[in-house]
């Protein structure tokens, strides 16, 4: 027998604002974000391998496609849409644009969020550090060379923001 799932209400912080959502227990985080009109996190491989569904939960990157929406109750959630919410692109976003670190752009939101995480934790990563940290993000257009350049450029931009 298929159980009938009861809707439940969860409350959390979404991109800086307190929100409420009616969810079903078997829905994942990506599905729930779509109800808020947020499509930056997108399910691609569906297995946590490709990074297209990256979302920050309580300051940590997670795969939204492997994360139950129910587990978001009480959490602080940040999506790629938040990065430019003040009207200007983040240094990481600028670096991706200037370097041309994408072709189709499908994987870009995930890469951008992961690079934010990387540079928050390690402001001056080596190429080895960059490759290691981003090994769980796939770009099927293979813009990897430009992405690594973008990370370096973003690190420089953030350094000059911090000192200037």
């Amino acid at each position, binding site marked *: 027998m*298929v*159980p*009938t*799932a*009861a809707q439940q209400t969860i409350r959390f912080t979404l991109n800086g604002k307190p929100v409420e959502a009616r969810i*079903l*227990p*078997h829905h*994942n985080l990506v599905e729930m974000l779509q109800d808020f009109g947020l499509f930056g996190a997108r399910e691609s491989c*569906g*297995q*946590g*391998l490709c*990074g297209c569904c*990256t979302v920050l939960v309580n300051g*940590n*990157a*997670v*795969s939204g*496609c*492997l*994360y*139950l929406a*129910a*587990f978001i109750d009480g959490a602080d959630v940040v999506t790629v849409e938040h990065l430019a919410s003040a009207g200007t692109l983040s240094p990481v976003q600028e670096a991706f644009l200037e370097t041309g670190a994408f072709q189709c752009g499908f994987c870009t939101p995930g890469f951008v969020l*992961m690079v934010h*995480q990387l540079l928050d934790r390690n402001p001056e990563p080596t190429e080895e550090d960059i490759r*290691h*940290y981003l*090994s*769980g*993000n796939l770009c099927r257009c293979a813009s990897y060379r430009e992405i690594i350049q973008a990370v370096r450029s973003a690190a420089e931009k953030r350094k000059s923001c911090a000192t200037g």
Partner: protein
Amino acid sequence: MMPFEIAEPRSLREAIGLLGRDDPSVRPIAGGTALMLMMKAGVFRPTRLVSLRSIEPAFARTTLGAEGELRIGALASLSSLEHSQAVLNGAPVIAKALRTLSNVRVRNVATVGGHLAHADPHMDLPPVLIALGARVSVLGPSCDRLIPVENLFAGYYETVLARDELIAELIVPPQGGRRAAYLKCTTRSADDWPALGVAVALDTDGTAVHEARIVISAATHKPTRPVAAEAILRDGISDAVLRRAGAAAAEEAGVISDTHGSAAYKRQLVRVYVERAVRAALAIPTGKQRRA
């Protein structure tokens, strides 16, 4: 995925009460990264999940005792262990193995208890923990028990745990001067599931070996110790002994064919990787290795 209910107990004891012994469609969930894959694939169709995320925070703590014993709460995330000073001091091979376990996002969410209870033979920590002589403390409705990680796995995706038993804590004994290493071989891409994992832990004095543990994983139904190869290592470390140990391990490990490679291919991997893992543990360079 099929609809299901989620229960949110506030304590581990309460969670155990909610699990019950008889219904296979009621299961615990912690990080959920592995269970989500099974549910999405339709391999597992729960009616109810018992979430462990709101239980006592003590079960997510990691401490290093004065004697060097590492106690890791089952709810500790893999990334918390990767960056834990206690783990780096008590058993650095664990932190090193975690660096190449899946990816940053999965490590941020997956827990060590779930990693062990899932019993996927391709997982990286079981062979490492078996080599280090680790145990898990397991709580159940009527009695609690300590199980060596070596005895935890009953087979492919199977543990010896009852449906209403939960891993509470992982205990890694003091390692003293023990030398350990974990190497894995992925055959499709660097971040793929391994075709083979090899963990070794050696108590040595110069080239003499008092105690040797080798654990083969991923290529086998469950993590397996090739005891004849371990015995060969106790002859003392030399090039000839390492070659004999690798050959013995390949012979006795019981490797299986799957999408990661044929059994014949994986036997050859075992032969090569056992030798490499021992060299890595003892920091003996080979011509082919850029660094030990």
